[in-house]
């Protein structure tokens, strides 16, 4: 463990492609149980959209696995969430209601969900987390930037624990629109959420969820090489110490391969199965490797993501025991 490594106390993640009805039923059952447990005063909790459900389930799982009592009622635990395209469908339908029915088409219930921070707010409210709560929008790397912001807050001592990650709910309409301006990756309809509880209290025992050893970002013409270099420097490890490379959502996978090889990292590169899930893809790729030693070698894994507008992000992840 390096001096700047950030422990992963717990992780919760969900992939929700539209074509798996059994999984959807399981998810609905878990959600009902979670909301019933959180409804302390007997008032039913009603979530309005799938993206809220995914985020709440992932948050509950991450907090449970970390041994956190819910509701928490403390301001030393914050939330940092990457959300961008996940609410595009909600915004579009809300505005289509205005176009169709004028002011009467404006739903006061749906309107708050057109505001990106509402998903993080919902988590903060349901679990009573009163620490710093941020929402960041970075497309493919929104979830990565959320992890980066959380790592920084923990290292600089502004937070003790942070629930951080990304969530998305991609709709066909978004994919069609995105393809028109060529900002789509290899997306597909569906949703996903992945939240980590980073950091630890003195009394809590991390659930062997691994560690984030380093994080870096890059922007501009050399975004991917810069992100990889910054990440390795942050982790304090040489390129030869990387055991494997995992690509999260990227807008140009060839540039990532080129940058990895250019950084003298000769190990295998694989695509994350979650790479179609935009804001959630990077945290999901981290989660895929955080719970197990990479390739059986025990060496850390480099996760790389790239967005055609927001730049590139990289994290070095050490698997748990």
């Amino acid at each position: 463990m390096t001096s700047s490594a950030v422990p992963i106390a717990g992780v919760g993640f969900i992939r929700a492609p539209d074509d798996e009805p059994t999984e959807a039923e399981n998810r609905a059952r878990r959600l009902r149980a979670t909301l019933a447990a959180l409804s302390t005063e007997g008032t039913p909790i009603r979530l309005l959209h799938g993206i809220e459900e995914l985020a709440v389930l992932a948050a509950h799982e991450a907090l449970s696995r970390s041994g956190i009592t819910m509701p928490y009622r403390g301001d030393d635990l914050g939330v940092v969430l990457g959300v961008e395209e996940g609410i595009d469908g909600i915004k579009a339908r809300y505005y289509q209601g205005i176009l169709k029915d004028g002011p009467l088409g404006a739903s006061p219930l749906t309107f708050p969900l057109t505001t990106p921070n509402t998903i993080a707010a919902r988590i903060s409210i349901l679990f009573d987390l009163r620490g710093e709560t941020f929402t960041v929008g970075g497309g493919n790397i929104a979830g990565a930037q959320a992890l980066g912001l959380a790592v920084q807050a923990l290292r600089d001592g502004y937070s003790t624990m942070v629930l951080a990650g990304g969530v998305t709910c991609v709709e066909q309409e978004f994919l069609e629109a995105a393809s028109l301006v060529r900002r789509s990756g290899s997306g597909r309809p569906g949703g996903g959420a992945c939240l980590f509880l980073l950091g630890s209290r003195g009394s809590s025992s991390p659930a062997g969820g691994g560690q984030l050893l380093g994080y870096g970002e890059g922007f501009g013409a050399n975004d991917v090489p810069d992100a990889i270099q910054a990440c390795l420097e942050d982790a304090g490890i040489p390129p030869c110490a990387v055991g494997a490379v995992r690509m999260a959502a990227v807008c140009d996978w060839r540039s990532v391969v080129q940058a990895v090889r250019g950084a003298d990292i000769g190990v295998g590169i694989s695509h994350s199965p979650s790479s179609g899930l935009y804001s959630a893809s990077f945290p999901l790729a981290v989660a895929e490797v955080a719970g197990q030693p990479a390739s059986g070698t025990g060496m850390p894994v480099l996760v790389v993501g790239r967005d055609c507008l927001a730049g590139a992000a990289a994290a070095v992840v050490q698997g748990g025991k």
Partner: protein
Amino acid sequence: MVSPFNPDGDRERFWESVCAGETAVGAIRSFDASSYPCRVAAEVPRDLLQGGRAADDPALRMAERAFERALEHAGIAAGIRAPRRAGIIVGTVLGGTTSGERYLRARAADAPGATEALAQYPLRATVAALAEKAGFAGPILTVSTACASGTDAIGLAYRRIASGSADVMVAGGVDAVCELSFSGFSALKALTSDRVRPFSRNRTGLALGEGAAFLVLEREESAKRRAATPLGVIAGYAARADAFHVTAPHRDGRGLAAAVKAVLQDGAVGADEIDYVSAHGTGTPYNDRMETQAMKVALGVRAQRVPISSVKGALGHAFGAAGAIEAAVCLLAIRDGIVPPTANLEEPDPECDLDFVPIRARELTVRTALSLSAGFGGQNAALLIRGWP
């Protein structure tokens, strides 16, 4: 800074108007609001935003203009030496929503040619455009924390500078009036039909506003080395969540009070040292009462004596830009020794019984100012701002 008072970015014109207690709230022009019960907002005339392409998003145009003015004023418009050490954080709630509306309108009408608007729609499009234009390659981030976005953007940039992870950070916020947000606040019955009257007994709600403001932050040694004359110093920042309700603030201002206490701790400043508070002061019944409570809890007896004002009576509520505009107000108050008034505060609310500087500006030495923001979802943020030593 760009606001309805200074579409060209002339900061001094903005400051004169705010201190004179002018109001920019008037009939909405950027879309047809005739079917809504309330029809006012504080807008930047769209024809004065031209200079780019006609299809450009108004938020992007305002952001570009404010960003350029900030670099000029800081004396770094010609470029920076280390692009990887220079970053940008943009706070926004709506991003390019106006462009998204344009696309959806065209699509509903089966009209061709609207797809180019989508390029400026994503939340992250503004920060990407600014970074590309300025050649910055350091930390690039979009933060969206409802009405606290601008304050959080500056606060997070301050932390980047303080931790040494960047040499220069340009941070602020932007948002433009659009029908999507207007219709929502109308449905929530949060809008005024005439004037915004923060902390007044007869306050009737908020008016949408718009604009952009950016601050250039750099390390103190760096500013001294290049003989810059900064407007002031960010001396502290904190954010806390209400964890209470998606649209309503906690009635006792729990989260805002916690943020104020935390920022005083972060800046190692006592409540007695605060000379001026720029309040969030939206003019809605709940917010203004909550904020009064929060200040009493967090500042103790100092809350009864310190001058507090809200510029939203003059400018409306510019959402993601509001916190950044108000941080700039604090810097100008420190520079000139003038506390701007709370416009339209003619009948004080007995439940808002602090010194809210009604109607007229006040001359006063301001060494340390506190800027507060609160937003949907229980977002609260506070900045501590001091004069340049």
